[in-house]
């Protein structure tokens, strides 16, 4: 299992520019928003957390559709599926998601404090947003894995996978953003939405891999 994790990490770093594409896209999102809302720094600070979350959500979608497709195209997927008695397929999926998250999403989370500065956010808000991103983005990857598995047989699933995933990620976004706000604005709570966010991630850490594994198994032909 560690071997699979290492292999996928290596592939992610060596083959694709996944890491940087994500960060740069993220940067593009953050760079464009000020043009929209104008130079009003207060307003920027207010929507900062939301924009970071939306940017991270959209950046995660990049490359997610190839999560299983690449393995299918070179025949590895068959062997991974056949090994499902030694390594439960759901666990295999979970490991692959972890590797994808580590190579493509974690860099975003690490870059987000810097972008928070660009958006003129307060330190507390930046910290809270980074924390919620760290806790919440795995859920997006896990939901995405279901979409990627469902569409694995389609050679160009990019848009379709995103369409399938996006509606399901909305709760993650809602609670992520509201926890981030809760940390700065007084009446709003931080702990409650943060715990719900954690719960969502844990929930999808259980449900996602099983659903994706079922979809993968039925995709073999």
């Amino acid at each position, binding site marked *: 299992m560690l071997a699979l994790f290492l*292999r996928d990490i290596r592939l992610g770093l060596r083959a694709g520019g996944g890491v940087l594409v994500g960060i740069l896209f993220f940067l593009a999102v953050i760079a464009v928003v000020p043009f929209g809302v104008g130079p009003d720094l207060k307003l920027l600070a207010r929507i900062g957390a939301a924009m970071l979350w939306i940017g991270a959500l959209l950046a995660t979608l990049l490359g997610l559709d190839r999560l299983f497709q690449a393995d299918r195209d*070179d025949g*590895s997927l*068959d062997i991974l599926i*056949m090994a499902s008695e030694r390594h439960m397929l759901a666990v295999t999926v979970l490991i692959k998601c972890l590797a994808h998250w580590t190579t493509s999403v974690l860099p975003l989370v690490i870059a987000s404090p810097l972008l928070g500065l660009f958006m003129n956010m307060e330190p507390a808000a930046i910290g809270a947003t980074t924390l919620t991103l760290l806790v919440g983005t795995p859920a997006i990857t896990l939901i995405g894995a279901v979409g990627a598995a469902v569409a694995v047989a389609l050679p160009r699933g990019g848009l379709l996978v995103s369409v399938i995933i996006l509606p399901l990620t909305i709760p993650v976004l809602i609670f992520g953003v509201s926890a981030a706000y809760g940390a700065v604005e007084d009446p709003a709570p931080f702990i409650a939405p943060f715990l719900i966010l954690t719960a969502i991630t844990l929930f999808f850490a259980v449900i996602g891999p099983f659903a994706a594994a079922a979809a993968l198994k039925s995709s073999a032909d």
Partner: protein
Amino acid sequence: MRLVAESLAGARGGEVLFSGLSFAVASGEALVITGPNGSGKSTLLRIIAGLLEKADGGIKLENSASGFDSLTSACHYLGHLNGMKPVLSVEENLRFWQSFNGPGDYSLVEALERVQLGDIGHLPFGYLSTGQKRRASIARLLVSERPVWLLDEPTAGLDKASEEQFAELMREHLAKDGIVIAATHLPLGLDGAQELVMGGE
């Protein structure tokens, strides 16, 4: 150990390709599947591997060796695709499959030696020639232990010498009470193998 199929049927896209297929292969025996293109050889292998639903009938492994409870878990499947990543080196690829599928009779270095790739294990898999790629994926069968080998046109692209080498590997596997089931258009050099001719309705 015996692999037994009883009135097996296979379908593709809703259409039955073969049905009522029965055969039994015991330890140390080989089954060679032949037949024209599109007769369902690959389909049959994928059904045995558990990658495709059978349409009807049954297939099972009797008295299997310990550790291999189900048929699927006892099988190595070598299809048309090699299951290797072009950007990783041959050794990295094999080391991954070894730790994922469990160890076998050969170490990594020995396996590479056996398929004559000893000195190019460090090259990215994508740089190999067709035959070398095929040999590298044959090495995957050696680094993890599985009693049943399912081979789909294993020698496509191999030169004469490698073909002979591979026949030797299969004979060794059979001598260790393994089972070989191969779909092929080319003679494999296995004496005394059962032959199953498909598509001869």
